[in-house]
């Protein structure tokens, strides 16, 4: 399943819910699958700057594919990280770099996020694209 298909699947899930609260609760629900990072990986270089609550993102390149792992500290961050890692992780760096992040709007939840959370998302995406660029360049 590629990134767009993954988004389409999540959109189908979110469309099941009729209210914003239900959609947000589903994000929290996704956070139950959230995993943590070992302490040594939580440092300045993996810290998501500008995130509303502390979060870290580790990117590793394996044969041209970007593997992402992250940890969030709030329920919202845990849920969003789970969702975003499903979309962005374990993809060829080229696929990520060619992906237009505006397509995330299709999920129908971005507008439900507070301005601070939307900034957090931008900070996350900035890191993802930086990791993908490095992966492509073989750095």
């Amino acid at each position: 399943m590629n990134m767009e298909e993954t988004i389409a699947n999540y959109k189908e899930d979110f469309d099941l819910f009729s209210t914003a609260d239900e959609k947000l609760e589903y994000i929290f629900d996704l956070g139950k699958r959230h995993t943590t990072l070992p302490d040594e990986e939580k440092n300045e270089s993996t810290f998501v700057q500008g995130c509303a609550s502390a979060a870290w993102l580790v990117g590793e390149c394996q044969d041209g594919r970007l593997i992402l792992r992250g940890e969030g500290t709030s329920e919202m961050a845990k849920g969003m990280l789970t969702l975003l890692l499903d979309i962005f992780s374990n993809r060829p760096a080229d696929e990520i770099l060619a992906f237009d992040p505006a397509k995330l709007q299709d999920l129908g939840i971005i507008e439900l996020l507070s301005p601070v959370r939307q900034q957090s998302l931008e900070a996350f995406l900035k890191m993802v694209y930086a990791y993908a660029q490095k992966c492509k360049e073989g750095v």
Partner: protein
Amino acid sequence: MSSVMKIENLQAKIGDKQILKGLNLELEAGKVHAIMGPNGAGKSTLSKALVGHYDIEVLDGDITYKGKSIVEMEAEERALEGIFLSFQHPVEIPGVNNAYFLRTALNAKRKHEGKEELNAAEFLRLMKSHLEMLGMKSDMISRSLNEGFSGGEKKRNEILQMLILEPEVIILDEIDSGLDIDALRAVSEGINKMKDGKRTFLVITHYSRILDYIEPDYIHVLKDGKVIKTAGPELVPYLEEHGYDGIEEE
């Protein structure tokens, strides 16, 4: 006969009044057992005693489920083990969302069975598939549990719970009361969907009408706190014609 539940000499009271007076009954696994009897015979008391309802005090006797005594078990433990009761008068719980309630119940059962919990989207898909079959409106998902539901909606909601929880022993206490013909048909369809030759049904009813839809294997007549007769479905028309007065204790 492969028995799933055995009730021996069950004596139970509600308040100061003894209702069950040495009731014996064996439920054959995978079969539909109908309990019929006059008002006050103890039909609802029996159903409550089987699920461990707090109204009931068991004075003597035993109930074994899959070979294990359950008389001392809490109601929630019996539910986790697969015993389900559809209430004659389902309780209204304002402020408790129907979907949350059902999902919490289902996930508690799945956890008990060592299965993964369903997330909100997975659960909603499951719930919606059943809603349609039962002819229930989609706003039932987000409404408070039974609050402001009509009699028919409450009964359909009980059947929805049954379909979602997939219990092994299903006790239906007057599921047909207050239902119009369409609701009765939808409810019966839900029940028939669950008949798989493994699940066992105990259908408590006053009327034979529902038994036209859910064909019973056994008819047990309950009178004055005891099962006085057990027969095949051929007993139903006799009861319809003659009532319970002519039935003598076997």
